């Protein structure tokens, strides 16, 4: 007998089943290539957590995914599908570039950093709010517009970085180095200063900002009026209009928040690690955010967990390059695709079977209960 799944099964067991399915398929592909999937898994786990400094790298990747995952999730709550995280992050990085390159000769580093953080969010927000406006007021489909905006952002980056922003006297498309001290402090420096020796890693203060953002999103969505209206917009636009709100305005606000979160991802890469604006620093993290949001069920806590998993996959995947001749970090891209497939597009595939199993277990429980009751009586 089929029984609807209780909430706890739906949010804990079902995602695990979907991820497991993705890993099983990935394992089969690795086996077909002629490698041992379990050895590959061991290499990845070691690479992600065990080696010196590995955890720092894992958390550094995690930071990117928390930002882009939250960005996708906030939009999802209003039933908007923001595929534009990639472009929004690029433009966020561009914003950091503008502010730092123009102010770092005159202002103290700390002030420049404090200005750069909101500017990253604002630039990302602008790149998110335009598709939002186009959807809300002009009726264009947000999926298509955000896809196009990714390409437009990428062209703008190429044009500016190979043109007016290119550092004088060099050939690669990137800006000059930021002034000394204009960067987010790396965690191992802080650790060493406090007397905890840590291995070098690119993990920096933006990880802390990411965690704060996760809490802020949780508060926004579940503890504020605006969050309530956002979720209501996702469920029924008519109800929102009836309650006296303008859904078009809500859509634009949501897309601004979503774009802003994606823009903050640039903090980690540009202000935390590169200390200059380079081309393609987003490397697909914006798209990974979609997988993260799907896996994390659009809840900040789930997103942090999913980001950690993807951080480990990326860092562990880099390790594959060293250990194997035939499998490389592109394997991670494949796993990512499979995760999006199973926990996104095929999310409902295992539900009927799970309901059947749960129904059996539940009725078995009940019958044993009644039997106990009979014995007692």
């Amino acid at each position, binding site marked *: 007998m089929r029984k609807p799944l209780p909430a706890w099964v739906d949010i804990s067991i079902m995602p695990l089943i979907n991820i497991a399915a993705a890993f099983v398929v990935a394992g089969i*592909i690795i086996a077909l290539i*002629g490698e041992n999937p379990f050895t590959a898994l061991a290499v990845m786990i070691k690479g992600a957590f065990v080696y010196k400094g590995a955890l720092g790298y894992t958390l550094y990747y995690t930071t990117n995914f928390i930002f882009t995952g939250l960005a996708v999730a906030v939009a999802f709550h209003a039933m908007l599908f923001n595929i534009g995280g990639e472009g929004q992050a690029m433009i966020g990085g561009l914003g950091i570039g503008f502010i730092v390159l123009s102010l770092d000769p005159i202002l103290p580093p700390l002030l420049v950093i404090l200005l750069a953080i909101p500017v990253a969010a604002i630039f990302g927000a602008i790149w998110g709010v335009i598709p939002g406006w186009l959807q809300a007021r002009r009726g264009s489909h947000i999926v298509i517009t955000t896809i*196009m905006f990714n390409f437009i952002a990428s*062209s703008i980056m190429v044009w500016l970085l190979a043109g007016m922003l290119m550092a004088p006297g060099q050939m690669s498309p990137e800006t000059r180095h930021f002034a000394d001290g204009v960067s987010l402090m790396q965690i191992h420096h802080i650790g060493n200063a406090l007397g905890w020796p840590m291995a070098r890693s690119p993990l920096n203060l933006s990880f802390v900002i990411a965690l704060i953002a996760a809490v802020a999103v949780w508060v926004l969505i579940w503890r504020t009026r605006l969050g309530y209206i956002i979720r209501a917009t996702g469920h029924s636009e008519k109800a929102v209009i009836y309650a006296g709100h303008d859904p078009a305005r809500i859509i634009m606000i949501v897309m601004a928040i979503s774009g802003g979160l994606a823009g903050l991802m640039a903090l980690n890469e540009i202000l935390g690690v590169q200390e200059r604006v380079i081309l393609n620093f987003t490397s697909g993290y914006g798209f990974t955010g979609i997988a993260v949001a799907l896996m994390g069920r659009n809840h900040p806590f789930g997103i942090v967990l999913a980001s950690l998993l993807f951080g480990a996959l990326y860092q562990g995947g880099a390790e594959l390059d060293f250990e194997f001749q035939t499998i490389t970090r592109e394997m991670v891209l494949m796993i990512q*695709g499979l995760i999006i497939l199973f926990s996104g597009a095929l999310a409902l595939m295992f539900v009927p079977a799970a309901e059947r199993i749960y129904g059996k277990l539940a009725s078995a429980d009940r019958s044993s209960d009644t039997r106990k009751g009979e014995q007692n009586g």
Partner: protein
Amino acid sequence: MAELWLQFVLTIDATLRVATPLILCAMAGIFSERSGIIDISLEGKMLLSAFTAASVAALYGSPFLALGCAVIVSMLFSLLHGFACITHRGNQVISGLAINILASGLTVTVGIAIFAQGGQTPFLMSEQRFSAITLPFAETARHIPVFGTIYAEVISGHNLLVWIALLSVVITGYVLFRTTFGLRLRAVGEKPEAVDTAGISVTLMRYQAVLIAGFLCGIAGAYLSIAHGAGFVREMTAGKGYIALAAMIFGHWRPVPALLACLMFGFLEAIAARLQGVEVPFLGPMPTDLILVLPYVLTVILLAGFIGRAVPPRSIGQPYIKER
């Protein structure tokens, strides 16, 4: 003057070469979306089939076998898309995205496993590829002014797949607007309940549509790696699938306008390639990046209704739930 004319004719020739995969993918998109299934996985299917074609051609040497395998692989991924979106009513955009990302990872992973060349396939010899077909009298005609140059440069000298792409537009138009199948397919994208009431399976219609889309994407991919190019390079589709999607929207989900949009986008790309490094008075080097981004910008403007209105099929993106 004669030099300028020749330059122009060569650009038109390049336009056709660049537009070929766009045309095939745009027709694929039309079939899928007209039936109500959003297909942003044109890109991924094209990438997978480009890889398959190049691998099979490198291993077995036959371009026709390679084309066949490319088409089959592309159709298998169409089936996956259909399985997720039609059978399991999954989100069509998410499914398409998954296929695109999967394609990026899978092509390089399998490529390294087979050829150990960093994700590329070996360089293909001319007998492993679809080579240019020189039409009769092309060389003699070259000396005839105007028409001769056009005949020799633009019409002659294309490979088989370019002709197939052009033919696909005619066939798409015929199938969609002159056959019962086409009528049903369009109806399924507009009002699936009506089709269902008439006793026709919505599921079956949609599966057929996505399979046709896969078939066409497969040809497009094979064109990239074994006709236009001579081997597979990682990420070789480079957003062409999305440009095709834009062209399809630009052409209002109709074959001939979509063809024109593909040619326009192809022309932009061809002209950008020609103008690379050309100095413009007062501006410095030609901003070719800005020409290349025009298809995306124009599509955004069109979708926003500033130049005409693009109205998608009404039931697009909505899984059909049969009432019981």
